[in-house]
């Protein structure tokens, strides 16, 4: 049981990194950015491009590339539709997602590529009688630091406070002099940084990448946000961990003959939760805050 909880914590941390990157933009812009998956995918390929460098340098470059791509997405695709309906934003993000996937497909080809990232963390260590993978520890630790860092950023820095204000009432924030472009670009930048870190850990776990690899994680992140409660960052993280817990527990305790139904049962569980908590576990009608 304890071993499963550790696994759920690790998977939940990775889910949380993805979910928060998506939730931040939703809070401020009302945008569900499905092209977030492509940021993760670009992060994966950037790992390959810089693989010859020391890992610390590679990681910094991957984060920089993905943040740059996130800012470019905002400037090129989303700025012109800012303030448009949710449907328009959603369609824009789908179109952008396909466009970026197509671009990477042209240059990198459709075949899966393998990458050995953080191979030195492949072993396990004994923690309180449990066998815990070093990679899992790294994922949980880095996620905890990033979540605490984000909380500090949103509370203690002027841009963070402006983002919180914009998440609550963007029009009023602008009427007070808050620069819309700065706040939105800041949100895309943070979202990009989370996507980059998620990409590193995702590739470290799976070892493979394809141009379509972003779809699964972005769907997981979206489901986590809905499960936790739309519009609240900590609720997105909570949803990510609950989703991981459901998945890991079903994986562990389902009879082997029913293993194929694991994902279906996960979604059934989510549907049941949403029947009783239609705005998500921690959601409230109309609640939008970061």
């Amino acid at each position, binding site marked *: 049981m304890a071993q499963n909880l550790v696994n759920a914590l690790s998977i939940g941390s990775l889910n949380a990194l993805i979910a928060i990157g998506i939730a931040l933009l939703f809070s401020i812009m009302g945008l569900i950015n499905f092209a977030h998956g492509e940021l993760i995918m670009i992060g994966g390929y950037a790992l390959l491009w810089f693989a010859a460098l020391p890992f610390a340098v590679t990681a910094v470059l991957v984060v920089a590339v993905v943040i740059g791509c996130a800012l470019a997405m905002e400037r090129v695709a989303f700025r012109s539709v800012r303030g448009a309906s949710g449907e328009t934003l959603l369609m824009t993000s789908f179109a952008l997602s396909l466009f970026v996937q197509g671009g990477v497909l042209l240059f990198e080809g459709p075949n899966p590529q393998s990458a050995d990232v953080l191979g030195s963390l492949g072993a396990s260590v004994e923690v309180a009688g449990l066998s815990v993978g070093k990679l899992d520890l790294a994922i949980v630790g880095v996620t905890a630091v990033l979540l605490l860092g984000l909380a500090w950023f949103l509370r203690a820095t002027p841009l963070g406070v402006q983002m919180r204000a914009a998440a609550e009432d963007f029009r009023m924030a602008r*009427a*007070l002099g808050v620069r819309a472009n700065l706040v939105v670009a800041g949100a895309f930048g943070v979202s990009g940084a989370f996507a980059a870190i998620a990409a590193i850990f995702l590739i470290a776990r799976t070892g493979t990448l394809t141009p379509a690899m972003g779809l699964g994680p972005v769907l997981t992140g979206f489901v986590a946000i809905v499960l936790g409660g739309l519009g609240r960052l900590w609720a997105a993280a909570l949803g990510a961990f609950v989703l991981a817990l459901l998945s890991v527990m079903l994986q562990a305790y389902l009879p082997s003959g029913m293993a194929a139904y694991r994902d279906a049962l996960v979604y059934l569980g989510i549907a049941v939760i949403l029947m009783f908590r239609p705005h998500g576990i921690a959601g409230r009608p109309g609640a939008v805050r970061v």
Partner: protein
Amino acid sequence: MTLLEVSDLYVSYGPIDAVKGVSLSVERGDVVAIVGPNGAGKSSILQAIQGLVRSRSGSVRWRGADITDWAPERRARAGIAFVPESRGVFRTLSIGENLRLAGCALAAGVDVSERVQLALRHFPALADRVSERAAVLSGGERQQLAIGRALVAAPELLILDEPSLGLAPVVLDELFANLAALRDEGRTILLVEQNVARAVKLANHLFSLRGGVIERVDEPDELLRNPSFRAKHLGMG
């Protein structure tokens, strides 16, 4: 000196014209009030001036410059502060964070903390509560915070949308005493207000708005001497 000049302004929501050809100007030191019933288009005028709704036609000029197409944040930085009917207080932020947020409209290098302290002199009850969440404030306190926050930006023009809305009579007395103090400091104020008696006592220029059409009415001093107005709005024979 003319600070604000609105010319032939139209604001539409779909097929409905909410504001029809409104023109008005505000001189430095003026307190201009627009009165009128619900749905007359008063708030739409203010929101168009602040850039929160787009005008269909017409122009808004600020210190001679055409700002019709400026973003709201640029107008705020140019010296226009807006207090909406809803107060626009950020409930999830602390009182202090709400106040400091208005520092976004200040030029680089201006000490925001000093501006916050100056604004709090008008509303000392908030001074000891800056770390509290704004969500805990009463309606009157939110109005104080909203006006105090607007003052942090050192605005040349303070725009108030229905400041009396939803406030108890005793709170209203305090609010309008504060507004009168701001007027006496020489601040320029443009407000829309349904409480005609309060508006007349505060303003030195008055406009009436009905069905989106504006008309200038008697100067407030004259109205206060008019027996029928006194009987209807002030309850005085």
